[in-house]
């Protein structure tokens, strides 16, 4: 028969005056439910409890604050759930008016705990296995930084990138703010380092199609799209490009300068392998003849790669607002209304114009205006939030214009100028003012085209209230971030949640900013909200730290999560509506708890009409006798 050992702690004898321990002891001494009663005066000290030799017994510990004591117990590992805590200090001795009352209450509290301990089931102390390999999804700066940091700690990393090369948005930028370093010059070495690192396997042209399992042991299926060039054979010599007769717009150059149908995205690409865009390829076969290594295979098919990893970092980045959704700016219609990404390519020395700021007609742009907050900080087409990077980006771009051409005139239409980062005030804002950049506080209402083809910006200056029109040669739209169109799909595969905009939601915005609701899936970069390069890199390293700290453990024990008895479950789904975390899913005609998502709140236990769900020892099976015993006379 089950019996309970009661351990009373006098808290260095301080409780002796407040509770009659003798009475407490004699009350339980004859109880058939009680094995023995031990009294200690310093249970919180190291090894005191361990030395009592109560390893597998059912124990009720009546002592100080459960919060303190339980931490001591759980910290010592091997917490099997058969130890029940009663706080007879703060919630009894200190809360009662006199010794008589405190003793009366202590008896009742212990009585309840005895019942709970009697009905407790031992918890599994078995640890989960941890596969010490990581998957990083997205090869932008956040993903690359993360992959490098994990790899440097000695763990294998798979870096999955949907494009032919890693590098992300940063590889397209001309200069970075606020220091105006050449973007690819500082990212390039990092990319090649990632390419060289023996611990990193880059899987380009690929996407994650299925994720199963729990933290420490995820099974991931990845689809690798065909590139029609065998990466193992291609040595990047470029002979194929020379013979290819077809051109296609180049995404890397913001579609401003075409490339061949067989191409390498950019000079610093990692891996430096050529790929064919079959949408444009005419299958003439010239490249196949030109290739000395017979690397080209037009029959290439998608491949599936199965990975088993212990942790996943999502760093898939995000998209930019589509300026066509603001018809008043006539993007796509007026050719000299361009986006800031296009501007980056035009102003870049390696870009389509060789770094000279030219209009589409080939004439230099002398008067350039920036319009801020296109698609951000407004409800409607865009998102309400500030896009973080664009004030700094536009000021940087203004400075680039003036560095190229001292005579140029630059106007920035802003709403609030936000120069909060390190060096932004000094290196961007002050320099812009010194260089004569004109800041106009306004969200222009319209761009018109004049007879001679120049652009007329119609605006109301919200500082002076005056209306104005400004004629310029070129308008650059500073686009806000928007969640990637495929984010929701990916989030569903991963089991993570997205916020109202569609960015990935963190486990806690402040305290667990790089974790998602799924344990073992971390997040870095702009996929969980607008960020700049610095912060993306910071997060990449941060996520890497979380991954390595997970891998550093010898074993892993999930916090108690709800478990469904399939025998009893009728699949009615009442638990589904009760779970705030969305941790319960239907599976066949039953339900399943996603153990890495479950937070152990137990809401589902209370929703299940027939106790088919259990969570540690918090079911009715334990609590009902406990409450009944406490209320007994």
């Amino acid at each position, binding site marked *: 028969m089950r019996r309970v050992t009661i351990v009373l702690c006098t808290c260095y004898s301080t409780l002796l005056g407040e509770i009659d321990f003798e009475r407490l002891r004699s009350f339980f001494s*004859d*109880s*058939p*439910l009680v094995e023995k009663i031990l009294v200690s005066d310093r249970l919180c000290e190291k090894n005191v409890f361990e030395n009592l030799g109560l390893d597998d017994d059912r124990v009720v510990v009546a002592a100080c604050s459960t919060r303190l004591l339980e931490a001591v117990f759980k910290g010592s590992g091997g917490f099997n759930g058969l130890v029940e805590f009663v706080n007879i200090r703060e919630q009894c001795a200190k809360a009662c008016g006199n010794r008589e009352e405190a003793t009366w209450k202590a008896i009742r509290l212990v009585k309840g705990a005895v019942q709970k301990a009697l009905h407790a089931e031992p918890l599994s102390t078995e640890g989960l296995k941890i596969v010490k390999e990581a998957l990083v999804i997205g090869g932008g700066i956040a993903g690359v930084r993360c992959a490098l940091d994990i790899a440097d700690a000695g763990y294998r990393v798979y870096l999955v990138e949907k494009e032919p090369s890693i590098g992300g948005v940063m590889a397209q930028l001309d200069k970075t703010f606020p220091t105006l370093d050449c973007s690819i010059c500082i990212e390039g070495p990092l990319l090649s380092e990632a390419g060289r690192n023996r611990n990193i396997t880059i899987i380009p042209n690929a996407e994650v199609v299925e994720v199963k399992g729990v933290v420490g042991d995820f099974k991931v299926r990845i689809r690798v799209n065909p590139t029609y060039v065998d990466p193992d054979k291609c040595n990047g010599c470029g002979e194929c490009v020379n013979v290819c007769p077809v051109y296609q717009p180049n995404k890397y150059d913001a579609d401003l300068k075409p490339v061949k149908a067989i191409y390498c995205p950019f000079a610093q690409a990692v891996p430096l392998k050529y790929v064919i865009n079959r949408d444009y390829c005419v299958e003439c076969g010239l490249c196949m003849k030109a290739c000395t290594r017979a690397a080209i295979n037009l029959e290439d098919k998608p491949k599936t790669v199965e990975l088993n990893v212990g942790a996943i970092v999502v760093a898939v980045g995000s998209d930019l607002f589509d300026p066509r959704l603001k018809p008043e700016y006539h993007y796509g219609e007026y050719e000299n209304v361009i986006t800031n990404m296009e501007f980056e390519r035009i102003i870049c020395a390696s870009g389509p114009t060789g770094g000279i700021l030219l209009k589409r007609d080939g004439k230099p742009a002398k008067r350039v205006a920036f319009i801020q907050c296109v698609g951000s900080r407004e409800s409607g087409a865009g998102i309400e939030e500030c896009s973080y990077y664009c004030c700094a980006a536009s000021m940087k771009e203004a400075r680039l214009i003036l560095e190229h051409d001292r005579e140029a005139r630059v106007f920035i239409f802003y709403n609030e100028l936000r120069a909060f980062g390190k060096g932004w005030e000094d290196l961007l804002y002050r320099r812009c003012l010194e260089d004569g950049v004109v800041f106009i506080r306004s969200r222009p209402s319209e761009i018109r085209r004049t007879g001679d083809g120049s652009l007329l910006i119609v605006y109301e200056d919200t500082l002076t209230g005056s209306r104005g029109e400004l004629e310029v040669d070129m308008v650059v739209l500073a686009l806000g971030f928007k969640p990637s169109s495929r984010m929701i799909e990916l989030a569903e595969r991963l089991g993570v949640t997205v916020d109202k905009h569609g960015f990935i939601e963190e486990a806690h915005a402040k305290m667990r900013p790089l974790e998602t609701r799924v344990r073992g899936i971390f997040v870095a970069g702009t996929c969980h909200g607008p960020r700049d390069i610095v912060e993306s890199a910071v997060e990449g390293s941060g996520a890497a730290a979380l991954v390595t700290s997970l891998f550093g453990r010898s074993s892993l024990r999930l916090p108690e999560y709800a478990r469904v008895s399939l025998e009893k479950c009728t699949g009615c789904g009442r638990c589904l509506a009760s779970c705030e975390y969305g941790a319960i899913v239907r599976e066949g005609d039953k339900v399943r708890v996603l153990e890495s998502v479950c937070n152990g709140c137990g809401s589902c236990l209370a929703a299940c009409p027939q106790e088919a769900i259990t969570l540690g020892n918090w079911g009715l099976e334990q609590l009902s006798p406990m409450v009944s015993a406490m209320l*007994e*006379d």
Partner: protein
Amino acid sequence: MLFLDEDGFKRLLEQLVSNIRVIAPVETDGYFEFKTIKHGGEASLDYSNTRLPPKRFFLPQREVVFKHDPKTRALHEPMGGLEAVLLGVRPCDASALNIFDSVLLKPPNPDPFYESRRRSITVVSLSCAKPREECFCNVFEAGPIRGSGEDITLTRITGGFLVEARSRRGQSLVEVSASLFEEAGPEHLEEYGELTCRLTREMNSRIEISRERLVRLEATLDEGFFQQAAQRCVECSLCSFTCPVCYCFDTEDYFEKNAYVRTKGWDTCASTLFTRMASGLDPRVSRVDRFCHRFCHKLSRIPMAFNSFGCVGCGRCVSLCPVGVDIREVLKRWG
């Protein structure tokens, strides 16, 4: 046979109420229920039958068998019932007590709780004048005039009641108030004879069976019939709980207020919990099995073991069953 006129009856009732606990049908919320009455006027004898049988006075829905206090090592066996007169039981419900007697008092292990209650309660039955539509007491000779478990049988006739003492205890109750009774006259007996004839004829015209054949039910079970009928059954077990005869019980032990308590309470064969063993095995696993069991037990096994049927034909299950399971269909088919 004695005769008790209306006035005498009232006086008898008042005498009883002032001396002993009297339980009689009382009308509440459109039904009759057995309740302890404080004065004779509370009892209403103008009822077809009570909604629930008086079973609970002999076999409470739940009773404590013993309490064991491990501290004092004392064993408490609550015993003894309050002396009472149960007045106005219909013959069918009274006959159920006869079945209880043969089952529960059978040596060598009579149920002491039942025994003490049965001993302390004097049962006074009241013959039916207008049997209900669903009644079939004639089938089991449990009415409508006389039952088999009562101490006194009252039959309402013009001007009063015919009183028949059926046991020594009934006899002594009559003797206590002997002055109220008079010897029944020939006109009383004639009316009684006519009534008996008329009611027996009426009941027999509804349903008449061969009891000898019926007992062979279990041996001649027609699975098809029961499968059909069981399809309808939702196993609500209402039939057992409202049955005057169903005496099956279960025990339950628990620890409460520092003592171990064993209780005993009504159980029902319609429940999947009835035959489930500790190992989890259930020999009566299908609904048809459980459904069949109820009829076989009542109509075949009890009569073979105890020589009386496990049904008294009160008609409660027939009337109350939400899905129209009708024991009379079984009787007609096998009887």
